[in-house]
């Protein structure tokens, strides 16, 4: 579908209804036009847009003159025409700060000996910005509502706050959200005295830690995957789920929604958004969907788009990586070839 250089701009191509090639200005509601049927003259006025009061000048002119119908901008920008030699795009550089990548981390739930641990994401800023806090609450709400079938009522939750600063209002908000899934926040693990004080005054028990050594802190970057994340929800546009293990979705992933997993991805529904399996670099990871219609698939460093023409019928499919990149196979056949091998 290449369409480009050949076409010239249809400057003179008049719309079908236009009787003459004479340029004219349409304004039927104009009361001052003497000869409504006749084409009027093209506008002759110019303006200096860079002057501060150009707007009011123009307004005055518009009001004063009966003949000025439309005020067409005429550029004084001819010096902008011959431009500097352009740099190569690849040479463009930017100084960056890596804070953004840290803030991509999400909250995680872990079960440990019958309790749930809620781990807050790490960040370079210790206290939450309003935006960050709002995003965190949204994430928590989504996680809680998409997994509430699996939460046993009255399970106690331990909040692993790491070195983040939380005030009592924020602690209560987390507690409130947890209660919507009938979970109860009981204990808070924190490295910050301030957070500990806020927690105690709000009536939670507190474990103040100098440095987290246990309780599955991810400081020592182990490569072991987390237990799979199981979600029952429709992932709508703008929702992104990241997980350090496999993700299973019971529901649809809409265009604009994305799943990013260190492990495999299973969508028991329609995958129309983006799925990235093996996001930490594992090419052996796979993406399966009952209805594979993704905007984009990624496995490790490979990227693939769905074929332009959708298939006549959807059936469960698997995306995997071979020498040629990402491939898609019908799930049942894939199982025969790749899973039951010697």
């Amino acid at each position, binding site marked *: 579908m290449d369409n480009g250089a050949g076409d010239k*701009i249809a400057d003179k191509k008049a719309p079908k209804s236009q009787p003459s090639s004479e340029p004219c200005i349409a304004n039927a509601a104009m009361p001052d036009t003497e000869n409504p049927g006749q084409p009027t003259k093209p506008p002759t006025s110019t303006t200096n847009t860079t002057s501060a009061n150009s707007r009011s000048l123009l307004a005055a002119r518009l009001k004063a003159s009966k003949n000025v119908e439309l005020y*067409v901008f005429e550029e004084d920008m001819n*010096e902008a025409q011959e431009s500097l030699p352009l740099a190569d795009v690849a040479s463009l550089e*930017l100084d960056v700060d890596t804070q953004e990548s840290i803030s991509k981390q999400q909250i995680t739930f872990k079960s440990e000996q019958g309790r749930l641990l809620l781990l807050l994401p790490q960040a370079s800023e210790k206290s939450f910005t309003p935006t960050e806090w709002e995003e965190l609450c949204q994430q928590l709400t989504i996680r809680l509502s998409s997994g509430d079938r699996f939460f046993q009522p009255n399970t106690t939750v331990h909040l692993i706050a790491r070195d983040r600063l939380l005030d009592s209002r924020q602690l209560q908000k987390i507690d409130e959200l947890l209660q919507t899934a009938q979970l109860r926040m009981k204990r808070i693990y924190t490295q910050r005295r301030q957070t500990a004080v806020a927690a105690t005054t709000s009536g939670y028990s507190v474990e103040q830690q100098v440095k987290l050594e246990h309780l599955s802190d991810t400081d020592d970057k182990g490569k072991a995957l987390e237990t799979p994340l199981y979600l029952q929800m429709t992932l709508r546009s703008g929702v992104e789920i990241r997980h350090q293990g496999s993700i299973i979705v019971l529901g649809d992933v809409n265009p604009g929604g994305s799943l990013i997993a260190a492990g495999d991805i299973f969508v028991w529904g329609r995958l129309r958004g983006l799925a990235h399996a093996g996001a930490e670099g594992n090419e052996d990871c796979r993406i399966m969907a009952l209805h594979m219609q993704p905007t984009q698939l990624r496995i490790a460093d490979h990227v693939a788009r769905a074929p332009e023409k959708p298939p006549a019928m959807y059936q469960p499919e698997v995306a995997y990586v071979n020498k040629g990149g990402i491939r898609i196979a019908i799930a049942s056949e894939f199982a025969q070839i790749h899973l039951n091998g010697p």
Partner: protein
Amino acid sequence: MAMNRIIVVTSGKGGVGKTTCTANLGMALAKSGKRVVVIDADFGLRNLDLLLGLENRIVYTALDVLAGECRLDQALVKDKRQPNLALLPAAQNRSKESITPEQMKKLVRALTKAYNFVLIDSPAGIEMGFRNAIAAAREAIIVTTPEISAVRDADRVIGLLEANDIKAMRLIINRLKPAMVEAEQMMSVKDVQDILAVPLLGVIPDDEQVVVSTNNGEPLILGKELTQAGTAVSNIARRLQGEKVPLMDLSVPKDSFLKKLRQLFN
């Protein structure tokens, strides 16, 4: 004065055609041989990629660039149909507050080195997203429809742009329905200009083809046969480059109505 043009496309009100104008204008400018980058500044509600049919090619977004996760050129999505055009996508999963005006300036400053035109598609509203969109701009295109509410919001935005020292402003009136104007059921071009008093860059008629092209991710400008709206946009692109192109005649041809009547009775 720097040579290259940095233009924000903004309106105040949502749904008046900012994204449509950015996509089509970007394509038209690229087609005329200029190197163009369009930036989606609508973080969290990005659309520009859809209109350009580039959604499935996005790998990195502006935020990834700012976080140092990729180089700027890796985030730019090149348009296969028109190699002069590139898109810098917004992040869809983040809010408008996830980027600052300073960061926006940084991105745009880098891009101006490699592109003749930087077009910035602004989100609706006058909050953070708007502030980000205008932060780096030197010129503005105000898009409005001939409706009181849209014009009111445009007026507010013009004031804010002036306050932010963006003086080079031009107006696009979008979705004009000549028949309704003639029946005095819609504001005319002059009515709108009377209020806004910003030099007119062009008028785009209401055109069903716009919706079709939106849904297909095929900008109007790529069509073989330009529709009225397509011609209007391509004229706007030429005016933007200093050419004097007269406004199109959008009046309802008098005889066509009679013809229709006659057809009815035949």
